[in-house]
């Protein structure tokens, strides 16, 4: 049985705290350069495109597409059976690693470029992890219960 306590939890730093505060509040947060407008991830208090040191935290739409992935077949104590380790490309541009959840972990249900949306899971008092699920799930569950 999957033991979620085996997931190594992130330890926020001063430069990433806004991201984890956002995740706890159910928001996916990115940063944007006040000078060149580049939107970037992972967090840092300056723009990696132009070096400008004034940047803003923005709330991302939470929407994106499945960019690439593997299905890990080696056993991991925090997961039941094979599971996806994926990278999603957010509508705002940056990419991030995640697991695609609430869908069978098989190539047939994990097609590249399929729309995905963020969903958060509370792991501790301080940390909620962002996961992604097929966008089709959330439109289906908008009418009622839909999550497994």
């Amino acid at each position, binding site marked *: 049985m999957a033991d979620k306590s085996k*997931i*190594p*939890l*992130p*330890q*926020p*730093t*001063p*430069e*990433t705290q806004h991201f*984890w505060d956002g995740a706890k509040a159910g928001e996916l947060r990115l940063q944007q350069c006040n000078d060149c407008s580049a939107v970037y991830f*992972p967090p*840092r*208090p*300056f*723009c*990696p*495109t*132009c*070096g400008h*040191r004034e940047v803003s935290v923005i709330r991302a739409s939470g929407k994106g597409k499945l*960019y*690439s*992935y*593997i*299905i*890990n*077949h*080696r056993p*991991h104590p*925090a*997961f039941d059976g*094979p*599971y996806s*380790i*994926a*990278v999603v490309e957010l509508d705002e541009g940056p*990419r*991030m*690693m*995640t*697991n695609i959840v609430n869908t069978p972990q098989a*190539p047939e249900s994990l097609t*590249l*470029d399929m729309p995905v949306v963020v969903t958060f899971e509370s*792991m501790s008092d301080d940390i909620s*992890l962002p996961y992604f699920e097929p966008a089709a799930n959330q439109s289906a569950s908008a009418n009622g219960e839909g999550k497994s």
Partner: protein
Amino acid sequence: MKPGSVAIVGAAETTELGKIPGMSQIQLHADAALNAIADAGLKITDIDGVATAGESPTAIAHYLGITPKWVDGTAVGGCSFMLHVRHAAAAINEGLCETVLITHGESGRSGVGRGGFRGAAASLQGQFEAPYGIMGPPSLFTIPFLRYMKETGMTLEQLAMVSVVQREWAALNPRASFRDPLTIDDVLNERMIAWPFTKLQCCLVTDGGGALILTSAERAQDFPQKPVYIIGTGESVETPMISQMEDFTTSKAFRVSGAKAFAEAGISHDDVDHLMIYDAFAHLPIYGLEDLGFCERGEAADFIWERNTAIGGKLPVNTNGGGLSYMHSGMYGMYALQESVRQMRGTAPAQVEGAKISVCHGVGGMFAASGTVIMSNEQP
């Protein structure tokens, strides 16, 4: 070094000194770096060489948004930065890069984002990759490949062919770990490790070692072995996080490193007789052939399928059997270099007749870093 040939043109410390609980260790590096770059009147994009200790030069370069042509991670304690200055001077004199940034940052008092177990969970990989069930290179190095397949139309059978062809080379090598012939079905039907990669598409895990001795070309004439000359070199780093690769279908570190090595050597691809591409996983020769410029984008799979890299092909690749069949101790680069040296000496078990130029291309840390060495048995 040549006296007076290199100068320091920018210098700064972090904005604050003393107790800085509001900055992680990597941000202390970055804060000092940005201040020094401003002091020099430069932009980040002017920097093409990065040296650091305490953090990896890959992490510093990616964090700052630098694509270096030279990196130095020499870490020998508190005097590391003196060594970096010396190495940088040599690198600049040699034309390996033009403008070097040397950084230091250490959250020695506050311990924010500092090394060790806690530091790992506070690193960007620790925060943004580790929670998702990553289990070493097989679960990370392989992630970009589905995107490559979708964009180029490459098939899983073509990926399997990489292992098949390298096993043919290994069969000629008495020291290879695996020498029995393989078929495409053998490869595809093996145990799944990280879909779509089976066990035969992942490198071996073995024990071993290797070493090299270098001296001046002038002195090299007086040694018993036939000299193998270094005629071009390249290096770069991209990102310590596979999820942050700029493009999943090509390695920026490969492209920068390869182009620099070819430019230094002053050779064209047609001049190359032998090629080693560090193959921790079966897709690496595909990326290597394209990013080094031997194939156009999307054409490497056909190039291997048509047996151009196989025995008797026009560009023999991974002639020891590679990390997939010869051996792989964890840091395989040394074994690729050894095979290039054997080929240039004319002593390889699967010797490429008349080979004069060998390109040896390495990867480090899941597409994080790259180094290229071009060797010749003729002095240019």
